[in-house]
Structure formats: C-alpha cells, structure tokens
C-alpha cells in the first residue's frame, strides 16, 4: 500500500446504476453459499435427476440403444405430462431441502450481528434488500426446477418431432408457473421465518414444522370437525392440487391421491394468503431499527 494512499480521500469515481445495485447482494449471497463444499456437492446432486431424465428421453427415442438392450418402448406413451410432473416432484422437494439449508443462513448472518442497519444506511431500500436476497434464492432454485424442466421439454420436442412441441405447448406454462409458484412460496416462507426467529437452526426447524406438522394438525381438525378444509393448512397438499390441474393430470391421479376434497380456488387462495403473511412478516421485522411500542 503506497503511503500517499494512507489518508482519507473522498470518492469521486464512477458509480454503478442504482437500479441494479440489489444484484450485489444476490452475487455475494450466492457466493457465500458456494463457499461450503457440501452445498456445492448437494447442488450438483440436485441436477442428477435432470441428467437421468435426459438419458431417459434419449433412450426412448434411440432405436439402436433399445435394440442393444433388447427393449421396445414407445416415447409417446412414456414421455408425457405425467412424466414431467413426476420429474418435477423430485426437483421441488430437492428445492425444498436446498431452501431449508441455504436461506436461514443467508438471512440470519445479516441479522445476528445487526448488519442490516449497515445495508439500509446506504442507498439501498428495504424492498431492494429483499429483492437482492430473493433473486439469489429464486435463481438458485430455478436452476434445479423449471430450467432443467424446460430443457427436458425442449429435448423431448426436438427428438419427438411431428409437432409434439406445439401440441404440448401448454406444458411449458405448467412447468414454469408450477415451479415458480413453489419456489416463491418456499423462498418467502424461509425468509420470513428466518427474519422472525433470527436463528438459523430454529428457522430451519420451523420450515419443517410448517410443511410436516401443520398438515397433521389440519388432518386432526378434519377428523374432529368432519370437514376437508383442514387440508388448506398443508402447503404440500394445496401445491399438489394446483399442480394436478396445471399439468392436466388424469382423474385417477386426482381421486387416487384424494385431491378432490377442496376446490381449486381455495388452494390458490391458501397459497396467496401464505405469501401475503410472509410479506407482512418481512415488512414488520426487516427494519434497521426495531421500535418498542409503548
């Protein structure tokens, strides 16, 4: 360090555009996650089902490979909306595990030692702070959910030909909306719970509780009150109900898994309510200074 630089200087150099400054938070948040080699390995493992899916699509379209293995498969019977739904079921639960792993740590490290006030004393608003964090999570989860889903769709459409792609164009919307909805719900919920409890382990535990204990309470309410509305307390249930309609699954799926108990609109209303509650919680707790009311 040159001696002449060891004095205070006002900065008068170039500045980055204010609109894209939240991306600094996304970049640093994502980079901090990949400092853990376990997380990096887990992220790579999350892409394994996509590779298996790609191999399956290739296999059902390759007559040579099928001949070598002595099998005969029809691509149109095997690779359809049910297949894509099944593929995304594995991906969304991997995304859930990734969220529980990544988000509480990402949020609580800013809150544990009151670093939030340092962000907010700079030209960065609370929505921008939140946007920076959310975009890091959404990008990460997108990379293991709808992006590989759409790539597999593209591969299937390319190999199948004969207008399969245009016939199943609606499937693009189903993959994209279905995954993005899931990603948004779990990201917002993980962030809100992390900001609320400010403790990584507790936030992770609460995520599991909301997803696996709350449905139990809902079922108990159903049994006592002889109703079906208790199922709306189960985020996995309402999400699957939405997916079954988005992916136009046959009736045997809807009735087989008992997804006919509550109407579709109530599932959307339930998801929307969860998102709103999370946003309210974030708005209330994500402040540079907390005010004791009195």
């Amino acid at each position, binding site marked *: 360090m040159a001696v002449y630089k060891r004095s205070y200087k006002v900065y008068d*150099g170039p500045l980055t555009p204010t609109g894209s400054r939240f991306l600094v938070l996304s970049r640093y948040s994502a980079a901090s996650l990949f400092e853990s080699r376990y997380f990096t390995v887990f992220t790579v493992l999350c892409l394994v089902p996509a590779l298996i899916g790609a191999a399956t699509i290739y296999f059902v379209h390759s007559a040579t490979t099928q001949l070598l293995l002595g099998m005969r498969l029809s691509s149109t019977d095997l690779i359809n909306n049910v297949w894509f739904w099944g593929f995304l079921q594995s991906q969304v639960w991997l995304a859930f595990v990734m969220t529980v792993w990544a988000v509480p740590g990402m949020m609580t490290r800013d809150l544990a*030692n009151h670093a939030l006030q340092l962000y907010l004393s700079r*030209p960065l608003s609370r929505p921008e702070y939140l946007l920076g964090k959310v975009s890091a999570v959404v990008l990460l989860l997108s990379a293991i959910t709808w992006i590989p889903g759409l790539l597999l769709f593209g591969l299937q459409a390319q190999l199948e030909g004969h207008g399969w792609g245009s016939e199943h164009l609606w499937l693009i919307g189903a993959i994209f909306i279905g995954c993005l909805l899931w990603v948004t719900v779990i990201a917002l919920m993980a962030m809100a719970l992390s900001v609320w409890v400010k403790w990584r382990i507790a936030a992770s535990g609460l995520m599991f509780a909301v997803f696996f204990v709350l449905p139990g309470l809902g079922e108990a309410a159903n049994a006592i009150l002889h109703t079906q509305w208790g199922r709306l307390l189960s985020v996995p249930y309402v999400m699957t109900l939405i997916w079954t309609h988005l992916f136009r699954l046959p009736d045997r799926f809807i009735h087989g898994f008992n997804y006919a108990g509550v109407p579709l609109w109530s599932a959307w209303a339930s998801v929307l309510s969860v998102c709103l509650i999370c946003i309210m919680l974030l708005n209330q707790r994500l402040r540079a200074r907390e005010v004791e009311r009195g």
Partner: protein
Amino acid sequence: MSSVVALENLVVRLGNRTILDSLNGSLTGLCIGLLGPNGSGKSTLLNTLLGFYPPFGGTARIFGNDIRANIGRLRSMIGYMPESDAFIAEMTGIKFVRYMAEVSGLPAREAMERAHEAFFYVGLGEVRYRKVGTYSLGMKQLVKLAQALVHGPRLLLLDEPTNGLDPEARQRMLQLVHEIRDTRKVHIVISTHLLRDIEDCCDQVLILKNGRVAALCDLEEERKANRKFLELEINHGNGFVEAIGRLGCECASFAGGRLKIVLPENIAVRQLYQLAAEHTVQIRRMNYRRDSLEDIFLKAMEDKPEAREIASGSL
C-alpha cells in the same frame, strides 16, 4: 456558513412516545458533537437523519436536502458507524468492507482498492484477511469505521465511537477522527455521552435533554474568545453576587456556593476581596480556569434560562 444539518421543528415519535420534540438548530461545524445523557435522543436523531425513523413533524435537511424527499441520495453521501455491533461475522474483514463499498455503489474493482485503503487507514491492514467474528472489540470498532469511510462520504455519523475501548484504542480512534476532520473534506457528527471526546474533536456541540435542544454551542468561538474565568467558592451569598454584577463582571452562581465570574480587563482580583469583606463573605477557594464543555453541559442540564443564553454565546 451553509449548514451541514438543519433541524426544522423536528419531531420524532416511536409508538406513543415523543423521543425528539421540536428540535431546531443549524449545525455548521466541521466536527459536530451530539451530547446528552442516556435516553436524551442522540441515537434517535442520527437514525432519523439516516431515514430509519420517519419524522412525525417538521423535518431535517442535510446539505440542504430534505430527509423526507431525498433520503436515497443523502445516504450515498453519508457514512454511518453504529453504536452496537454491526458486522457479518463469517466474512473476512476486507471482504466485508468491500461488500459494503459495492452496496454503496462503487464498482467491484474500485471497491476492492478502497477497502484495502480504508483498512490500512484505520490501522487494521495486517488483519484484513481474518474473519470479522474473530476481531477484538477495538478492532470491531475500527472495522465499523472502515466500512463507514470506504465509499468516501461527505458526512460521517459516528454513534459512540469510543464505546468500550481501552485508553490506547480510544486515543487511536480520536486521533483518526482528528485526521479525518483535518482533511476538511468530510463533516463529522459524533454522538457520545463522553464530554472529553467532544472537547477533543469538535468545533460545535448540540446538547440534548429529554428529546429537546438544551444548548447549541460553538466551541470554536468559545476557544477563540479564550475568556478566563474565576471560580469562587463562598460560604453564603449575602448580596455579594449582585455587588459583583454592579462592578461590571458577568457572574453565574451554582449550587454549593460556587460562583463563576468573567473578569473584565479593568477589574482586579483585589476588588473582589474588598467586596467580599464589605459583605462579610468568606472566599474559601479561588481558581482561574477557562469555561469547559463540562460547565456548558452542566448548565444546560440544569434547565435554566441561562442554558439558552449559552446557545447565543452570551456567557
């Protein structure tokens, strides 16, 4: 002189409590001290200037910009060192400061360069690759100063910068504040309840009491005036104070029979002894001293009309 911070009937309410009550004043100094007992509203004022608390009434202006309207723009001109711990424990010092510089809008390359400069400037150059969580309390204070300086702000808000520091670290911190002030490129507002910190560094002081302005005093003017005071301790007043006033001296009385007298050039100390004898008053102690910040502070805390007079420099 144009004001750095102008307070215009500023009222801040948190919940049902009024924390800052109709603050008025123009802070123009290069280094401005915010003094007051615990709970007087010093930190709340800083937080309001940063836009953390919205004004309930009135407003404040920083370099002429209203905090209600231009807080985003203002924040890019401000460096803030909070009182409490504020860091990301898992990051190395240099990465943390660089990160803060980038959030302030510096491009990555410049942010890295400025982060190194800031670290050497505050004297933590050797430990910049250690995680912040492993730093000592003094180092954490310095790293907070480094992150406040890294983007080259025009106004530095320091909230209790010497809190919890040992004498050596405190001296180092005050020396840094001196150096930054002497560059004359940045204005500093220091909030503290330590009078000596303010007296060492500041040229203007705003004293708060119960959320109100108790005094606004230009220390630089006081120093320039270099007026000498006589501090007396007497057994009882007995008309002595009034007689001193008639003699042409400015006089202020305090509890315990303490008097402070400004002697004009043409009045000799012998005349005071004569007056005391005439009024059968015993002078038990007599000291020459300059008016210290402590005197100004104590007078402001007494909530007497004189406190207001101090603001206009009449005593």
